[in-house]
């Protein structure tokens, strides 16, 4: 905690007036002018003292920050607590490189607290160093005492798209997109289906393969198989965050789209297939893995939030691939031609599916951005 004084224009004006009064009073022997000048100086000093006492009597508590996603407005809450002996006022200032929040709280009773809300629309993923200060000029505003409250940086997750469960499942089941594996089944077990529980009426989007023809014929309506608990299927997602050294806006856009896709898939996987394991392999050879859970989802999104593009290539998925031989393997690349990466990954075994910038899978709905948000991206 470090505090500093900030003189205000009003304070400088009062100092000048006091100096004029003192000078005129001394030169012309007008004692009341001298006394008035002295009084103004004392009021200024009093302002120094009270402002510092007031500012230091407050504590800023931040309940758990909500998950922040790029291009999605979030409401954050801060709690201001007055630990001083009497009711007081304070001004809170919060600043990142993309937002400035300033709020004056006129009165918080002694020992009381006040919850303050602020909406925040982050225009990029990543870390936002946060400068947060409490200040007070009470009671006259001739001077302000400002002290910085240490605050961790805000982490903004990548914008997430929507994933349609069943088409995604079908896509995963058919392997080898764009290569010789087009007709080959990636996995003989559906990641979302396990024990047959019964049948249910056909719904649009259901795979014809799942239609239970015999029962349908007997009952006179289309019925599809319904599975009980989905079998846990692990996922190894490799993110190739490639960015040329002289990156064009289009390259950056490709990278952001790839990160967004990866985030969406990981979030979907972690929150839908709870008993599975998920691993994220990043271009800097870091691997983050764990049991699927909302907590892991946050951890993975946090890692994605901090991903920077690089032209270097250091992917290493050997360890996780050897441990999880039956896991679904997925490469998401920001390159338009990820062939070299794919051939590198194949040495770790298994069948690799991949998504490239020009891929437009039907199961993925990118985040909906307004024109303003789109224009603000780069």
């Amino acid at each position, binding site marked *: 905690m470090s505090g500093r004084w900030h003189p205000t224009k*009003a304070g400088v*004006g009062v100092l000048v*007036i006091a100096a*004029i*009064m*003192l000078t*005129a009073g*001394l*030169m*012309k*022997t*007008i*004692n*009341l*002018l*001298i*006394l*008035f000048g*002295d*009084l103004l*100086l*004392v*009021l200024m*000093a*009093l302002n120094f003292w*009270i402002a510092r006492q007031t500012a230091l009597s407050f*504590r800023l*508590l931040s*309940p*758990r920050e909500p998950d922040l996603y790029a291009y999605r407005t979030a409401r954050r*809450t801060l*709690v201001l607590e007055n630990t001083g002996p009497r*009711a007081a*006022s304070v*001004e809170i200032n919060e600043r990142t490189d993309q937002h400035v929040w*300033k*709020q*004056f709280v*006129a*009165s918080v009773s002694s020992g009381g*607290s006040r*919850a303050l809300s602020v909406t925040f629309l982050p225009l990029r993923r990543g870390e936002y160093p946060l400068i947060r200060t409490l200040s007070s*000029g*009470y*009671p*006259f*505003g001739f001077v302000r005492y400002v002290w910085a409250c240490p605050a961790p940086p805000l982490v903004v997750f990548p914008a997430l798209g929507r994933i349609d469960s069943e088409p995604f499942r079908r896509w995963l089941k058919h392997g080898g997109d764009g290569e010789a594996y087009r007709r080959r089944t990636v996995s003989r077990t559906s990641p979302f289906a396990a024990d047959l529980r019964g049948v249910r009426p056909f719904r649009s989007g259901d795979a014809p393969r799942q239609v239970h023809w015999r029962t349908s014929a007997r009952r006179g309506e289309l019925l599809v198989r319904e599975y009980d608990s989905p079998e846990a299927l692990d996922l190894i997602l490799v993110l190739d965050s490639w960015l040329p050294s002289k990156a064009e806006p289009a390259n950056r856009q490709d990278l952001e789209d790839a990160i967004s896709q990866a985030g969406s898939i990981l979030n979907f996987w972690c929150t839908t297939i709870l008993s599975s394991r998920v691993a994220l392999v990043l271009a800097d050879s870091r691997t983050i893995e764990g049991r699927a859970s909302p907590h892991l989802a946050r951890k993975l999104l946090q890692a994605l939030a901090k991903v920077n593009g690089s032209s270097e290539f250091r992917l290493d998925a050997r360890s996780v691939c050897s441990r999880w031989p039956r896991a679904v393997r997925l490469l998401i690349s920001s390159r338009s031609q990820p062939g070299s990466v794919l051939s590198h990954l194949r040495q770790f075994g298994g069948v690799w599916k991949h998504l490239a910038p020009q891929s437009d899978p039907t199961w993925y709905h990118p985040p909906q951005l307004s024109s303003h948000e789109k224009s603000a991206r780069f």
Partner: protein
Amino acid sequence: MPTAFAFRLSVYLTLALSIIALGYSEWDYLREVTVFSGFILLAMLLAFEMDRRGRHLSLFWANLVGGIIFLLAAVWLGRHYFEHDSLMNTLPWPAGGLPFLAPLLMTLIVAKLLRPKHNGDWWALYGISLCCIGLAVSLQEDFTFVIIILIYAAVGTWSLTLFYFQRAVTDGTRSVAEIDRIGRRQAGRSLRWIVLAGLVAVPMFFLTPRTQGVSWELFSRGKIETGLPHDGTPDLSRTGQLTPSREIAFEVYASRPDGRPVQDLSPAQRWRSAAYVEYQSPRGLWTPNFRVVSKPLVPPTPTDLRTPTPNLLLPDFGPSTIRLDFRLVTRGSGLILADPVSFDPGGRTPVAIPLRNGNYAYAVQYWDTSFVFAQREFRFVNRYFQSVRGPGNDLSDSLTWFPLANPNDTTALYPFMVMPPEGIANHARRIFARLVADGFIPRRVQERRDATGRCHPADHAIVAQAFSDYLSFGGSYAYSLDLRRQDRSLDPVEDFLVNTRSGHCERFASALVLMLRTFGIPSQLVLGYRGLDPVNEGRYLIRHENAHAWAEVLVPKPDSSRREYAWLALDPTPGGSSVDNDEPGFLDAGARQGKRLLTDYIINLNPDTQKRLAETLTQFFLDNWAKILGGIAAITSLIMLVSWLRHRRGMRKAPVVDAVPWFTRLVHTLRRAGLPEIPGETPREFAERAAAWLQQNPGKAIDASVPLRAAELLYALRYAEQPVTQAEIQKAFNGDPGT
């Protein structure tokens, strides 16, 4: 921008007080401005009501009103400029222009109030208000004015506090309502702050170093105490409360030639210091004689002892001879002699000074009955002797006659007969006519006046005495220490004679001198002292409060062929005082004492007072240091005791309700287990630290996740205002919140 009612009220009160202060200060200068300030206050009421309704003048109308005001001000200033006796032409520039600034500042306030206002406008209003106060302080300094200023300071502090809130709020109506809510509380706090600031500012004020600079004419704020003027120039234009000073001016040891102390000096004894002839109108200043006039009279020089003598050779006036041993407190204040100065023409010089080598040097006589030392170094003496005739000789009626320096040329007397300003002369003529009509002046005196209205020299004494009696006993004039001016465009003496009709001895004596000059009677003003304070064994103290002024009229010696003149002393000051001599009540005494302290140590503080105060306080501390330290310790203890009692009462009155007892118990449990909380730590920080500690120290009864869950619940309950059920608490504590 919406403004809170409390804020508006405080600002308008502050501005109104500054206008009241300015109007009050203008009373002695331009009375029409004081009346004008009343209209300004009414206009402010209108502006306040308009502000309440959210209405303001448009830019066009505001400019139009401003233009009209400017034109009116220009006409008003022009009228004053072309009026000969206007204050603008009587006071020195640029100080003389200050009283004329007041109406401009006042109208500027109203003009700003009638327009839409933002923060900058409010700051401007505060600035103008401070200018008003600065100007008012330059014009007026009396007790009532100081009270107005103190109220202004208190209200202004309150207003500044509310203005801080007003400019800090950004979200409109809700915050404005909040300012109204806290406005009253801030009033109490502001009062405390201004008292605290005053307690610090007053010692600062005392410690502020000052120089003995010459004050500006308009701002002649020197020490308004009884006593001779410091610069040797009586200033009749000064106003304010004249404070009797008990300080000693000089001491006198009176003894007979054989050494016996004299213990019966007259309580009405006069002590002359200097005489003044030239009067500067309309400034109201007297110029000392030695600076301006030639010597019209030839003193009947006593025996000229130019060389010092080893023995003190003073004239012997017979058995009633008294030898006075003067001890001046202030070196260099000139010779002060018992009046009238006794001497025999051709006799010895009655004034001598002891030299360091044991010899005595003698003064020479001056033409206006004073004695001076020829050698310059002797002029700054602080001890000397004078030989006088005792009261038994009835010296007051015996005059010492001086021959004219040039018997054929009476023009040398003209400086004593300079015609006063027309207003004074006319007033004197009216009084003369009334005195003649009432029989106080014989009709023959009027008939013997020449064509220019001058009296016959033989009637000078009669006329002078009649005028003196008129002033002192006529009942039209009163003695007062409250020096006021009613119309500063007039000469101070004319203002005294026509308007105020009250004042101190300088005004009475000056009025008599100037009125007598209307009739060609040579006269001068004499400053000195009257009275004494016997101490013991022939020792007398003469204090500054004994300072006095009287007039001297040059009367010709009847039936003298040598054209000899004598100075006739006349004291026109009424014997009674307007000061209430009754025993004051407790409140009156307190008020008087407060007024005296304020006047002595704030308004009229000067380097001498500063020095005296410092010496007094130092001596007081040295004499009573044990008591003072004990008192400070007692007061500190008392404050601590009261604070403790209040704290205890507060605790008893409002017991703290623990809304999260389960979290408190958790904290206590962890503390007992060896994890104390850190001051300033938030619940979440404590919980995270506790979780880490529990993980590092397995085997405790509490699971590492419990503190984190408990903190989550606490934040949800306290800050997010989410209801927390008992089941959730049970769950958070693994079924046992009391673990």
